[in-house]
């Protein structure tokens, strides 16, 4: 085990020794933690020698020792003020909101969790609809584990893979808090549940862990946002597990808008039972090093998942999206579309894996990854990976890397738009394709504003003007920027 792994192991051990980990009376939980610690001791932290980390160096996480924060409400309040919380509000969005600061529940900034079901019921227009909010529990993980751990004994830790990379094990072993959302069968809360994670303390190491259990035929919208107060470095290693019962529907949004010095290793794992529907939108506009592992397992027949992603990166940002869609049952569908806009020296990785298990006949899976390079210094490594063990399936994938279309640019200029404005308009249109897939209007509008501001922010787009649009290609190999061989090989292919 190298020094960095030892450091993070020590962070977990210190919490345990201090009695700072929740649910100490739950034996099953302790067993999970012990197993995770053992796992971490065996695998350590990933390195670029691992195939799944070939293009992503975790050096920013190891050169600087990120540390647990002390659970101290006063110190926290000094850094995060009600004004920060107000500023972080999404205009017009009525949600049930839980706020976490450096991975710990901030009750003073959160909605009263005991009242959530009541508040939600009161939203309904018709009396006959008044049971809308009934059957929903939203609670901080630590509190729930201390009081009623048995409520999540059979779900916590069962969706995320036990044999994933070291960061997942580290989270299993050392998560102190997070959000739990439990929906009883048929529960359909009116308001979305919003989980706001804030990086606040300098060099903080936060490990939030979230669990969503959607009972049969329940439906919920979830928004998980990560932001920063201040521009200093921080490291968040989060895991979100989502278990969907038969016919359940979860619309989940992961919004990563931390400061340019904050790092985020993020695991999102969903398991879909029969006829359930999981819709996942990932929007990454902030962070210095961002690594997302997103896994969806279609475990019951007629389940469907949509994975839509947008990453807009500039400066020295590095955004790595590893996705795995596992078709474990027959008659399931999955649709994955990821788009990237990369400027300056930004680097992105997209690795999309589709696994069709033996017996998962009539699978219909598509995957698309399109990238726009606005600068010669930007780089994308895109790699689709299909593993198909059934013989009656439809799987298609494709990846493109290119620059802004020269014909479209000229067309806009010929209509009087300045070059910078024309570039922004085309870049926005490219990216907005993903935002357009977000059903929640308030969230979509807020993200649209964020993206617009980002593109108008001078450097973000206009800095790339010298980037060879003369090549004019919108296809792979268009020039400017480096492209991994995986993308070249990835024209549309079908196997049926």
């Amino acid at each position, binding site marked *: 085990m190298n020094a960095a792994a030892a450091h993070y192991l020590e962070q977990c051990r210190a919490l345990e020794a201090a009695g700072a980990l929740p649910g100490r009376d739950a034996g099953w939980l302790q067993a999970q933690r012990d197993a995770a610690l053992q796992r971490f001791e065996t695998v350590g932290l990933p390195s670029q020698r691992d195939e799944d980390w070939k293009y992503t160096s975790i050096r920013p996480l190891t050169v600087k020792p990120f540390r647990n924060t002390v659970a101290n409400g006063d110190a926290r309040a000094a850094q995060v003020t009600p004004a920060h919380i107000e500023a972080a509000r999404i205009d017009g969005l009525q949600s049930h909101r839980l706020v976490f600061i450096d991975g710990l529940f901030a009750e003073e900034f959160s909605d009263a969790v005991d009242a959530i079901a009541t508040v939600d019921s009161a939203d309904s227009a018709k009396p006959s609809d008044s049971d809308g909010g009934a059957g929903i529990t939203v609670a901080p993980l630590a509190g729930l584990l201390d009081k009623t751990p048995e409520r999540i004994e059979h779900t916590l830790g069962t969706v995320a893979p036990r044999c994933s990379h070291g960061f997942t094990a580290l989270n299993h072993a050392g998560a102190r808090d997070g959000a739990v959302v439990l929906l009883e069968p048929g529960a359909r809360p009116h308001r979305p549940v919003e989980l706001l994670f804030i990086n606040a303390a300098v060099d903080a190491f936060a490990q939030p862990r979230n669990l969503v259990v959607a009972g049969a035929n329940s439906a919920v919208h979830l928004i998980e946002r990560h932001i920063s107060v201040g521009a200093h470095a921080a490291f968040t290693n989060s895991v979100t597990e989502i278990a969907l019962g038969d016919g359940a529907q979860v619309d989940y949004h992961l919004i990563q808008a931390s400061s340019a010095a904050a790092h985020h290793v993020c695991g999102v794992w969903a398991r879909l039972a029969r006829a359930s529907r999981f819709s996942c939108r990932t929007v990454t506009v902030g962070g210095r090093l961002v690594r997302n592992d997103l896994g969806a397992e279609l475990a019951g027949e007629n389940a469907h998942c949509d994975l839509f992603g947008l990453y807009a990166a500039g400066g020295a940002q590095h955004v790595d999206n590893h996705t795995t869609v596992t078709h474990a049952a027959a008659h399931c569908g999955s649709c994955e579309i990821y788009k990237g806009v990369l400027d300056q020296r930004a680097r992105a990785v997209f690795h999309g894996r589709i696994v069709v298990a033996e017996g998962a006949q009539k699978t219909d899976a598509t995957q698309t990854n399109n990238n726009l390079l606005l600068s010669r210094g930007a780089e994308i490594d895109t790699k689709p990976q299909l593993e198909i063990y059934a013989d009656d399936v439809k799987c298609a994938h494709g990846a493109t890397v290119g620059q802004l*279309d*020269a*014909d*479209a640019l*000229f*067309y*806009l*200029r*010929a*209509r*009087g*738009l*300045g*070059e910078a*404005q*024309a570039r922004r*308009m*085309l870049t*926005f*249109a*490219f990216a*907005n*394709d993903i935002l*357009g897939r977000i059903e929640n209007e308030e969230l979509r509008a807020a993200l649209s504003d964020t993206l617009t501001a980002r593109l108008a922010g001078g450097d973000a787009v206009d800095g790339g003007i010298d980037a060879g649009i*003369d090549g004019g290609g919108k296809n792979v190999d268009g020039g400017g920027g480096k492209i991994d061989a995986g993308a070249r090989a990835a024209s549309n292919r079908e196997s049926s």
Partner: protein
Amino acid sequence: MLEIKNLNASVEDKAILNGIDLAIQAGEVHAIMGPNGSGKSTLANVLAGRDGYEVTGGSVAYNGRDLLDMAPEIRAREGVFLAFQYPVEIPGVTNLYLLKASINAIRKHRGEAELNAVAFLKLIKEKAALVKMSEEFLYRSVNEGFSGGEKKRNEILQMALLEPAFSVLDETDSGLDIDALRSVAEGVNQLRAADRAMLVVTHYQRLLEYIVPDFVHVMHAGKIVRSGDRSLALELEREGYGWADENEPPETAS
């Protein structure tokens, strides 16, 4: 309004225009005809300022100013409009959004106040009615999934909105059936005015039955080899461009 003198231009180092001379006055409609490869579309693109078309000699004065020195967007804001032969599809940018950005860029350039959403919507609906375009198209992505006729009609809608002083219509008739051609031409004709000029580039005389030009010029090998009134177009219709393959045209009027 427009004075082209001894214009020479090349594309990828190949000389395409070899000394074009043409003067267009306000209120006039000029047609440029000629066989494929004669340089008609190159002339249109040079006037609009497209990248990749290199002017190697001559001058173009627009209202006394050097047109070739202006960036494409400045030409547009100064009232020069190119109706594209192949209008570009722009997924994700709605027609409405582009048109609003466009007219406001032009208004701003003229020192006029930008139109607000309400005023713009009222104006664009009037213009859509003028060119007989269904309002539904305003809310769709620019040209995406439009038929050939719809794309050309969309060009005319833009023209109707921007009210350019000088318009170049590059093969606006290509790919149109007779009904679409007629209605697109109607739209163009409504924009004819004493203070506006047009240059209509076409391969066929057919379009000129609907947009009746004041002058017709024939291009061949990058030069205007004949000029006349609209009867010249009819003559070309009868006799074709066969003579263009000979070294000398049958007669030269310019």
